[in-house]
């Protein structure tokens, strides 16, 4: 496989292909008749996925930190470049995106009936934006696509959403916009600081990392700006309230992409930018403790609120808040296991929660309700649906053998070394997760059929199987054989830790925050 890919010069064109293919597709959709739109979108996203699969072999874990690099000048006077590349973490987030996209398109087949061209074109633009965020190595480029991505999502929620779509989409837009504008200011501060320091004006990631030396007070504010932007996106408590509204109102594909990929951009941003740029502020001192506290509070809080949600979609939205807390905790715990675990949780959450949103969407298309109380006992009528929903829920609960467990376990394992109390509290969320999801299943699937209108529900169609089976395969595969993925993430996680430790000034009491070098190797 490697030789084949090398023969095709895969590493040279793959990012460009992934980035610009959807744009071409979007243009094609706008030119083609409306009835063709979904086929074009599906074809393009499927092609994207097929192309991206090569990354699995083409990415060399033992190779250079960043691979598949492409670099061109864009705005020469200001040092803005089209500069992209991937490390192990980016590779998997891109794979997650390309994997979910065709499924999201296929999942919208029936749900989206009006203005199809617009919808599918926006989905493709969204794909470009998301992939770019994960591969940008130039902060200006990153910022541009970070914002670009907002627009299609805003329209997807605002135009094709449910009854409260306007409120939800505006809330989503304003929340994320507030954060990102402050981030722009912080990026510019870094840019000027690095420029003055080196005499070389550039938005390059490594350049800013090396030369942007700010005084401590400024560091604090700049970190705050980055953190706010990403924490809103994650979302972390108490900045999360846009999420339930956005999820509930978004069409199925919107929810899937929102939960599956967009939230990951927040945690990716923390991992890639906020922490490495300002480790002294982020990790050392009070801020680090506050962030860890917020992560843990979010884990418990999200689970608690999920427990009493009558609306299944909202329940899943709050479970996302809880799961993403794991990711933040893993990043801040700053051990290789916890960071690997955090990345695994990102992937697993994307897959499991994506699948849950698909499942809710499917039942919504049949009954036009997401209220748990409107169902009850439907397992007898739709056995396949019930079986798949049960498996996916169990994966979200973190049952060993399915994907959810590995990531959570690694986060807890890594966090336990440095923050035992946070890890202990975090562990209790596995009870809550089981409680709210099993309770939901109980109310929705089991028992007697409570509503006569559910007697005639149709079980899964072939198209719906086509959406769900790939997700199930990945759920089982990642649960049983996490090794290959972890091996590919490990060097990048290791590098993240080294980068942060290297930049932690000596006077900052590293204390228990940083794992001892001689941490025992797990056998």
């Amino acid at each position, binding site marked *: 496989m490697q030789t084949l890919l090398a023969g095709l010069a895969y590493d040279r064109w793959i990012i460009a292909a992934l980035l610009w293919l959807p744009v071409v597709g979007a243009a094609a959709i706008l030119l083609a008749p409306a009835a063709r739109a979904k086929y074009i979108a599906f074809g393009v996203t499927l092609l994207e996925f097929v192309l991206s699969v090569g990354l699995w072999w083409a990415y060399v874990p033992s190779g250079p930190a960043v691979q598949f690099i492409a670099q061109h000048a864009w705005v020469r006077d200001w040092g803005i470049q089209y500069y992209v590349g991937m490390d192990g973490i980016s590779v998997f987030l891109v794979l997650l995106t390309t994997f979910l996209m065709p499924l999201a398109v296929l999942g919208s087949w029936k749900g989206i009936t009006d203005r199809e061209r617009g919808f599918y074109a926006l989905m493709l633009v969204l794909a470009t934006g998301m992939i770019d965020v994960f591969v940008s190595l130039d902060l200006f480029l990153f910022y541009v696509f970070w914002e670009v991505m907002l627009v299609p999502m805003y329209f997807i929620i605002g135009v094709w959403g449910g009854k409260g779509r306007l409120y939800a989409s505006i809330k989503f837009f304003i929340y994320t916009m507030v954060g990102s504008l402050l981030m722009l200011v912080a990026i510019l501060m870094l840019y000027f600081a690095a420029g003055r320091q080196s005499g070389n004006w550039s938005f390059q990631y490594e350049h800013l990392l090396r030369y942007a030396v700010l005084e401590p007070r400024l560091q604090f504010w700049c970190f705050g700006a980055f953190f706010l932007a990403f924490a809103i996106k994650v979302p972390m408590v108490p900045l999360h309230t846009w999420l339930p509204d956005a999820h509930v109102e978004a069409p199925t594909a919107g929810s899937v992409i929102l939960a599956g990929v967009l939230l990951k951009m927040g945690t990716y941003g923390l991992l890639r930018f906020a922490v490495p740029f300002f480790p002294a502020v982020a990790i050392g001192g009070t801020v680090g403790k506050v962030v860890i506290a917020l992560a843990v509070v979010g884990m418990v809080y999200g689970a608690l*609120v999920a427990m009493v949600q009558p609306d299944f979609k909202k329940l899943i939205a709050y479970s996302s808040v809880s799961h993403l807390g794991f990711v933040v905790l893993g990043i801040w715990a700053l051990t290789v296991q916890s960071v690997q675990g955090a990345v695994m949780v990102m992937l697993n959450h994307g897959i499991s929660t994506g699948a849950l949103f698909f499942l809710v969407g499917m039942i919504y298309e049949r009954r036009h309700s997401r209220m748990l109380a409107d169902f009850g*006992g439907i397992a007898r009528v739709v056995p396949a649906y019930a079986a798949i929903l049960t498996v996916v829920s169990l994966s979200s609960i973190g049952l060993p053998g399915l994907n959810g467990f590995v990531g959570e376990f690694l986060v807890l394992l890594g966090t336990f070394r440095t923050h035992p109390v946070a890890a202990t509290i975090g562990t209790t969320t596995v009870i809550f997760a089981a409680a709210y999801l099993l309770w939901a299943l109980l109310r929705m699937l089991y028992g007697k059929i409570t509503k006569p209108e559910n007697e005639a529900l149709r079980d899964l169609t072939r198209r719906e199987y086509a959406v769900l089976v790939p997700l199930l395969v990945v759920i089982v595969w990642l649960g049983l054989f996490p090794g290959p993925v972890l091996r590919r993430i490990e060097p990048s996680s290791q590098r993240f830790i080294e980068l942060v430790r290297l930049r932690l000034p000596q006077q900052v009491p590293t204390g228990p925050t940083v794992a001892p070098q001689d941490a*025992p190797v797990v*056998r």
Partner: protein
Amino acid sequence: MTGTVLAALAAQAAPLLACALILIFLRGRPRVAAGTAIAALTVSFAAAAFLVWQVAVPNTASVSQTLWLPVQGGAGLAFGVILDPLAVTMALVVAAITLAVMVYSTGYMRGDPGFARYFGFLALFGWAMLGLVLASNLLQLLVFWELVGLASFLLIGFWFEREAPAAAARKAFLMTRVGDVGFLLGVLLLIRALGVATIPDVLAAATSSAPGFTVPLVAFLLLMGVVGKSAQGPLFTWLPDAMEGPTPVSALLHSATMVAAGVFLVARLHPLFAAAPGVMQGLLWLALVTALASATMAMVANDIKRVLAYSSISQLSYMLMALAAGSVAAGFFHLTTHAGFKALLFLSSGIFIHHAHSNDMREIAGHEPLSQKAGVIGLVAGSLALAGVIPFAGYFSKEMVLGAMGERVGGVVLALAYLGAGLTAYYTFRMVFLTLRGQTPRRQEARDIAPAAHVAGHEEHFSAAAHAAMAWPVLALAALTLVLGYLGGFFATRLSPALPHEGPFHVGGGALVALALVAAGIALAWYEFGRAGALRLGFAERVPALKSFFGDNWYLDRLYKATVIRWTLALSRAAKWNDHTVLDGASDGVAQGTVWGGRILSMVQNGFVQAYVAVAISVVAALGIWLTRTGGLP
């Protein structure tokens, strides 16, 4: 790879394969599904028997593993199989009981619409338990531990169309998960301190007490998992509810799988627990209280399956007491004999339940129970074993348990443990007499039990084949109650070689006391329930307060509802309110404020030039004053 490792892998692979085949391809073909599952468990059984012959008989031990979870620069977490007498003997027990239950189920579950699914879940259960037993790594054990919980969840809630089984399944999963949090934390702590999770390494480190490794804390946390899984102490109330599952499932759940997993874990990691004597002392007391408490609950239950469920809790307590007193052999021996006779008791009670369409012993008694010959033989043999009547299996293992306790603990604990043995005999034979000795006089409060565990699906008459499918496993297990008791020496020499062991028929002072108490218990049961003209009302049932207290799980479920569950829900609602009112209120407030602010400011823009100029001048004036005051201007 040696033959033994291959056999261990085959024992696990066969049921997994069967489970996958059945659930994916054979849902619509019940007979093929059942055949596949039985064939798979036959393979497991043969492999386990081979392992016992190759490993347990010559008393060897080995571990072979392969990498599963690579971790930072190191060896990572390896998964594999551990092959020593404990593991392979347990594997044989698991495979044998699962196989017996499967054969029985072909009769019991005949005609159920979910027949194929049922066998798929049984295979899953078998696989998970075999995986747990053979796991070489604590993390791997944890994985299968959870899978065992999953299989129980699926099987307890098998008749999910009704509320009660679905709720019971959820309760079982959640309650055991509360304990599992402790287990998970214990494993995390252990890996953090030792860097290893391979069982022999963990045990070696525990006895050599590596620096920074707090054995008591780890032992305590791991025990939380045991308490949940083996239905002890405050976390036992899921088990009586789990009776909502099909009766063969109860047989499996109560004997060799699920609840046995907790006891097995303590036996597996015994050196680690033994290194924390304080924790072991606590376990001893907890188990003792549980043993007596559940015996009192069994004394007043009228549902035959609930009586058996409480007796399981009580017997599990005896196993744990033996382990806490330091004897792996006694605890595991009792686990083995109990697996045999408890499966037997459930399977024979299933025959009566099927016949009478009721779980209520008084109703069973009204349906000519004596016509069910296999059931009668099974019930009587199993009861004799459970009560501990010589020479049935339960006698020998209970003797070994009490003997082991006599060596280590004295006085009160031992006396109470003997008392428990007497109570066991009493409630066991209360069950026998209530079930088999004719009509109960009619009383007002006749129906205080759950409805019969039958769904409309398999009401039709039994064929002879179904009868045979149910009878043969029962008779085989009944025969085993006369055989298993002689394995004591086998276990003693292999699992606790350091402890003294007498032959099976060594009747010391302890044995005589126990037998006397058993006789007294049976006599009391005969007087109250068995003899002609008996009132058929036990001494505890005569006191309404006691009857309700014992019959309602000592009010523990009510306590949980009134406290933990209520508080959690209240907290959840408060969090939800906070989200909707405080947080959303704040963001909506900011939005509203912006809108109003905009409106107010837009009023300024009213087109009157005079107003603009006035504002401009006053602002400039204010700025000038402020600047001169602060020294900004010279």
